[in-house]
């Protein structure tokens, strides 16, 4: 993207009972990261825009991404078995010299995998890029070519998926957008924190000088040549509006990063 080109930010609210954002799961243990991956978000945008698995992704992978954790959720382990419902034995991972899968020996009929999900989580994803592309993508997310999913096909998103476009930078958009946690969570937090007007929320931002490296930038989603590269990110806390009215009788707190809170001190 050229520096002079006007940019926009597309805000996505990633919320569903279950989400799954894997970045290294190829075998029987399908893990999830605690927050959305770039490949997951790019994949969602590509599916919305109707791109095939073989289509180029440079423009989408080149968008800057910021993720704000509005409701962290928790990890769910799903025990999953696979079997041929006609009762035939499964094929093994080993192949013959001809590249054909060998049958399992002794015959194995049930294959076990573990799938991890994030349950009850809500994220705010901000995608920054050229104005024209962002406008196209916003329309695509509202009129997707394929059903969209939050990281895994069975994780259908709840509405609204997109909160629309914002001018200004990615950071500004993530700072000014109200807290997206569910009403019950916001009310409970408000009672504990004097209904403070702001809350500190953890966020991960694309940053060329960042101190963390993630291997989740997709180069290709083609089934035979799925490849990823790395990006640098920065982890931080952002102050976001809660939409609550502060209680004058109680000193407001931001409910920010307080590791001792876990111990009840």
């Amino acid at each position, binding site marked *: 993207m050229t520096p002079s080109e006007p940019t926009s930010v597309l805000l996505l609210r990633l919320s569903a009972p279950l989400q799954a954002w894997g970045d290294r799961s190829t075998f029987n243990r399908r893990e999830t990261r605690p927050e959305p991956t770039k490949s997951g978000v790019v994949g969602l945008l590509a599916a919305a825009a109707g791109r095939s698995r073989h289509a180029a992704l440079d423009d989408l992978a080149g968008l800057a991404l910021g993720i704000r954790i509005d409701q962290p959720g928790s990890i769910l382990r*799903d025990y999953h078995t696979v079997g041929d419902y006609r009762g035939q034995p499964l094929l093994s991972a080993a192949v013959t010299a001809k*590249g054909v899968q060998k049958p399992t020996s002794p015959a194995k009929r049930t294959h076990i995998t573990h799938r991890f999900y994030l349950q009850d989580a809500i994220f705010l994803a901000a995608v920054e890029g050229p104005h024209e592309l962002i406008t196209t993508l916003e329309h695509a997310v509202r009129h997707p070519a*394929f059903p969209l999913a939050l990281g895994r*096909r069975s994780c259908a998103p709840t509405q609204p998926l997109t909160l629309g476009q914002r001018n200004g930078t990615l950071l500004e958009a993530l700072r000014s957008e109200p807290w997206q946690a569910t009403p019950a969570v916001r009310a409970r937090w408000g009672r504990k924190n004097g209904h403070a007007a702001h809350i500190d929320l953890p966020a991960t931002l694309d940053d060329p000088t960042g101190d963390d490296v993630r291997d989740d930038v997709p180069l290709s989603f083609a089934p035979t040549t799925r490849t990823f590269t790395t990006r640098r990110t920065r982890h931080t806390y952002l102050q976001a509006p809660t939409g609550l009215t502060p209680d004058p009788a109680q000193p407001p707190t931001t409910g920010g990063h307080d590791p001792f809170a876990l111990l009840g001190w």
Partner: protein
Amino acid sequence: MTRRLYIDVHVVQTVPPANLNRDDQGNPKEAIYGGVRRSRASSQAWKRATRQHFDAQAPQPDRSTRTKRITQELTNRITRNTSLDREGADRIATQLLAQLGFSQGKKAGDTAYLLFYGNAQLDAVAALVTDHAGDLAALDDKALTEAVNELPVAKHFETGHPMGVALFGRMVADIPKLNVDAAVQVAHALSTHETQLEFDYFTAVDDQNEKDETGAGMIGTIGFNSATLYRYATVGFAQLTDNLGGDTDAALDALDRFVDSFTLSAPTGYQNSFAHRTRPSLVAVVVRTDQPVNLVSAFEEPVTAEAGIQAHSARRLAEEHITATRVWGDEPLCVAASHTFTAGEPRTKDTVDSLTQAFGESLTFADLRSTLRARITTALEGTQ
């Protein structure tokens, strides 16, 4: 390209104490949603039940099989279509399939691996030679190979997938070009309310016990819970049509049968212990031209037990649909619902009112299916 249509299917279904889909401890699967524990049946478990129901209902040409004996199957079709003897038909069938380059199996005429194909696909390949089968059989081997090589055999295996494959997708690890992306998306079924895992402690007595032997022959526990589930699936009609080679009628058939199978199927885990098979109390279909809309957020705040869970869940769903339509301004193309609630009863009157406002008067399930088909047909004609 076919007009972009999504068909959302929303189901509210109550199951009595049951263990539909269990984890490695043998207990029903669960998930936290809205901060509370819910009963869960995985999308995979329910898809399998749907698929089995679907396969059992589908007429023969729409079914699929997995076999090594594809040559024999093709030979049977050619002999049935023409006056050729078995030997002649077998020569033609062998040559037709030879151009695909399947590795040979141990027994003559078998392929090395099980091939998953639709009966309709094989019918189409057999039809390629019906008109001039006699001429082909008269040729010598070399001429036959040449004559047959020009026929588009591979094309018929790459398109015109059986409905089951078009709906649910297919993965062939060693031949990626035969992969098909699924046209349906099924969410995990979640209870609309908080559930607690319960245990049934059981003892079984040995019938042949001697009089002075006391105690049980066996003891154990089965985990179970009872839930009103919200189930959601969406069908991408454009992709379904593409998967079926652009055949709109076949896509309408596949959609219709999917709605039927998704609504009426259920996982059979512990069926003999709990006899949990129920019918839904509400099925609502929403046809949209913009995007699929999952209404699970209606139950983010759990329904409480005092409310009359089943009726209250249906009402919440209807209200969520109305709110979502009003707030986002995305009017669906059409809606229809079948439900079991009656307006005559004071307890469910509000539920019926909300459901009627959201999805119209309740139809019988058969009418719901025919209405759905008619509306989509009209919508597709309108754009052509």
